[in-house]
């Protein structure tokens, strides 16, 4: 499968990703640097002292030159230094936050695909029954109720009503407050609420498209042939129908990934999960330029490669597709 053509295709895509990341980072760089004020506003410096500080961090140079300097570092994996903390290197910070966000986002992706594909297949098999109507309505509710509402309700039920209130504040056992990456069951439980809050939204769309494409595939001749051969109904559904029905489902995966990343930004701020989304909101309010640009850059790289993987998976699901 990984022949020469595929490799050339991957190489082209990687070049395209690099180009996108450069354009995105430049755009964000210009935007954050043209905001009024700067990261040192809390120091109440004026005149010469402020000028010296700006000079020390190279902020008095033209934006394009600053970007060029930043880009030279970024190519070597150095995303610059944080201004608010006066010089903490950003790359390790962002990578650690990425690992946290990836955990949340990965769990949300599992919820999305698990719920979405299961519900879609069941709804299609039981077309026009109450099961179908219930599941499709549930799908619309899923992408109509904002994730912060589901998250708040979850906190209300599990933290407030189920006796986890301590001193009138939330007690929601997050694995990453102090004991990040504790592992085991507690991580799983505390990850589930953020993951479900994010995943319900995206799973709604997956349910609908899975149902639609299953309905189309089920009517085809080769499914009837498989049935006529006397194959078990479940085997026909999973092996023959679902595999082909997954191709359209793959096509919405890029928008699913975007939906999950948006959800992660919101949910991390609700649960105070120290991930990329929370860092982004903090950094843009504090005008910590390099952090904002760094988070954007990581996201752009992430989305680029996520889309590349989706496109390569097409060929795995449907062998007729070649690159």
């Amino acid at each position: 499968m990984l022949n020469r053509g595929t490799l050339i295709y991957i190489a082209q895509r990687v070049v395209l990703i690099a180009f996108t990341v450069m354009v995105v980072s430049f755009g964000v760089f210009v935007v954050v640097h043209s905001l009024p004020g700067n990261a040192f506003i809390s120091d109440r410096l004026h005149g010469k002292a402020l000028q010296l500080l700006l000079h020390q961090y190279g902020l008095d140079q033209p934006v394009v030159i600053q970007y060029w300097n930043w880009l030279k570092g970024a190519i070597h994996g150095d995303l610059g230094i944080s201004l608010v903390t006066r010089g903490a290197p950003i790359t390790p910070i962002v990578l650690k936050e990425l690992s946290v966000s990836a955990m949340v986002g990965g769990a949300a992706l599992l919820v999305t695909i698990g719920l979405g594909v299961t519900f879609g297949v069941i709804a299609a098999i039981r077309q026009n029954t109450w099961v179908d109507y219930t599941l499709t309505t549930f799908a619309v509710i899923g992408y109509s109720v904002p994730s912060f509402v589901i998250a708040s309700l979850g906190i209300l039920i599990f933290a407030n009503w189920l006796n986890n209130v301590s001193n009138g504040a939330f007690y929601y056992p997050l694995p990453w407050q102090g004991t990040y990456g504790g592992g085991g069951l507690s991580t799983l439980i505390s990850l589930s609420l953020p993951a479900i809050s994010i995943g319900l939204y995206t799973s709604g769309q997956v349910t609908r498209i899975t149902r639609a494409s299953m309905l189309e595939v089920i009517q085809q001749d080769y499914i009837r042939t498989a049935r006529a051969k006397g194959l078990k109904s479940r085997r026909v559904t999973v092996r023959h129908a679902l595999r082909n029905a997954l191709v359209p489902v793959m096509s919405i995966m890029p928008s699913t990934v975007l939906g999950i990343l948006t959800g992660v930004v919101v949910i991390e701020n609700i649960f105070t999960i120290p991930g990329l989304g929370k860092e982004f909101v903090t950094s843009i309010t504090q005008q910590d330029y390099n952090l904002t640009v760094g988070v954007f850059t990581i996201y752009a790289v992430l989305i680029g490669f996520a889309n590349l993987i989706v496109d390569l998976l097409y060929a795995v699901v449907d062998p007729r597709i070649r690159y």
Partner: protein
Amino acid sequence: MATTTYMPEVVTEYAGGTVAREQVSLWRDGLRRLRRNKLAVVAMGFLAFLAVVTVVSLFWTPYPPNAIGTCQGYTFPSPKHLMGCDDLGRDLLSRVMVGSQVSLVVGLATAFVVLVVGVVVGLVAGYMRGWVDTVISVIINIFYGVPPLLIAISLYVLLGASLVNIIIAISATVWMDMARLVRGQSLSIREREFVEAARASGTKTSKILFAHIFPNALGPIIVQATFIIPIAILTAAFLTFLGFGVPPPQADWGGIASEGFSALASGFDPYILLFPAIAISLTLLAFNFFGDGLRDAFDPRQKR
């Protein structure tokens, strides 16, 4: 208000204009199908109710929405204050009523901006092809390469806190879907005979785009536009919930929900969070069901 009158307007305009009679009955047929869809009818009913509430809130609310101390802070819902009061003793019902203004304005205005930008960009890209199309497609793909909420927040911070800037920021994150859809339509319609005929008879490019190609892509465009409304309202709710909202004291649902969330975090009852949350959820549900009904009725080929 505008949503419920949206379709008939289009229909009459269409019927009086360029089309033959059989196709008028196609639109009528669609309307009939829409009316038979119970969920869509209920959704339209709710949206009409919401429109009335919004208009009423412009002139009258039970209490002034921004008046502090109409009752004790955190007063539980009672007959006098149907939704209770927030931390500053502002009447929550009044604030939720006024909050509908922001949601509806953001939803409808964004849909309109995206409609204009997306249609123009998409038509041009699909009709011109060549390097114009390549450049536009690359720009679209770059926008798809960043999480939309981050673009919206950055633009919001750059432009400053105001309702108009929220609309601009959200439009910048959702115009691509419309542009891509119209581009696809434009690419296929430009190959049809009547476009070739128009070109051969020396019609101006702008007239070909807007008088020949655009009307023939109208069905999918309208359907897509109705789905932009809930997406815009949702994104606005995210923005305001995260603190990037309309300037205070103006009330909006995401902002009230965010206040309610902090109240919940300090151990107060959840009603301040629940009422705006229910309002947003019902509104989004209604727009989504209405959009679904519209698509099933007017664009039966498109499947999702």
